């Protein structure tokens, strides 16, 4: 017989009433996603670890701010993670720069020639080289398989904004992966619209 798993919201309620097991279950269910989001956004395992810890401390402290009508608990957690990542990048002076980006390969068709690990590293660098407001939609929608509505809830912006940013981000990624990135399109030179970051 299939046992019904408790929802995130159920676990949160139990956690708030002092059920440690519920907290641990919720943490184990959601920590990897939060950690990977922070890692893909920052390129730093240290930052990702720090952000993960801060997100769940914030959940203990500010769980009352969660409103299920405005989005899922996962989206709420990603929203907190996003704020912590941005603060962390601000502290490090990386907010509008390219933390670990490497020059794209000048080859005409690098994807076909790179080994799998090289490809992954190239993609990782290309994602990190994106301006933050494009990077976050790529991370949420492409790497975390969120739909537009979930990503919009996490980022606090309109679904249309997510979609248009994702389209633009894809173009930048394709350019970078082919080594044809155009200078005017690199970080910090495209004015963000919609989300307030």
């Amino acid at each position, binding site marked *: 017989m299939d046992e019904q798993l408790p929802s995130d919201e159920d676990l949160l309620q139990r*956690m708030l009433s*002092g*059920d*440690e097991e519920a*907290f*641990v279950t919720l*943490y*184990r269910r959601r*920590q*990897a996603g*939060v*950690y*990977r989001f922070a*890692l*893909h956004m920052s390129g*730093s395992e*240290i*930052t*990702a*670890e*720090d952000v*993960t*810890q801060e997100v*769940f*401390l914030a959940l*203990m*402290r500010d769980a009352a701010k969660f409103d299920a009508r405005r989005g899922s608990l996962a989206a709420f957690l990603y929203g907190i993670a996003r704020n912590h990542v941005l603060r*962390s990048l601000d*502290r*490090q002076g990386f907010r509008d720069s390219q933390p670990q980006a490497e020059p794209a390969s000048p080859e005409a068709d690098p*994807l076909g020639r790179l080994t*799998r690990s090289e*490809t*992954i590293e*190239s*993609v*990782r660098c290309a*994602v990190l080289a994106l301006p933050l407001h494009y990077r976050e939609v*790529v991370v949420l929608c*492409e*790497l*975390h*398989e969120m739909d537009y509505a979930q990503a919009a809830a996490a980022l606090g912006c309109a679904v249309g904004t997510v979609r248009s940013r*994702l*389209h633009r981000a*894809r173009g930048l*990624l*394709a350019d970078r*992966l082919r080594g044809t990135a155009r200078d005017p399109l690199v970080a910090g030179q495209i004015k963000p619209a919609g989300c307030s970051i």
Partner: protein
Amino acid sequence: MNCREFDDVVFEVAREWGADVAALAHAEACSRCAARLGNEREVAAALRALATDSQALEAPARVERALIAAYRRGARVRPARRSGALWPIWGVAAAMVLLAVAAALQPRAPGPAASSDPAVSEPVEIAQAGEFATEYFALEQGTDLTALEGAPVVRMKLPRTVLASFGLPMNPERAEEPVQADVVLGPDGIARAVRFVN
């Protein structure tokens, strides 16, 4: 479907988020859009590879341990259990003694100290609202934390690197920032236990 309409949906088509028969038919008939779809599929495949490669990544176990300790302190639940495994190094203990002696000149308030009794171990007695604290760590092996009930507690700032000595996660990028700690003093003014406050 024309090329402009194709551009609007090519992203979803490349990711196979639903079969768009009209778009696929257009791509078969239009070399420009076929190339565009091919490019989009390459990007999609590259991102999928990165997502797959990252799938097993998760936060280290020490994050869970630290959070559970914080939950026990912050939640209206059972008191924290003592950890017998997290003993500080001698250098840290010595530094704490020196700091505590200096701080003992201006104790903040009679404290609840470390105890397994929930009536006296509630963190809110010292920690401000919204703060979370770790459990208390004894600075000398064999210290009976319950015997420190009612001992003075002082709030002080310690180098963040001290966290690592207690097996707690520390962000090296913030190593320059001090961390707040509640230090429990013995009757002789020597530091006996410490907890860290976020």
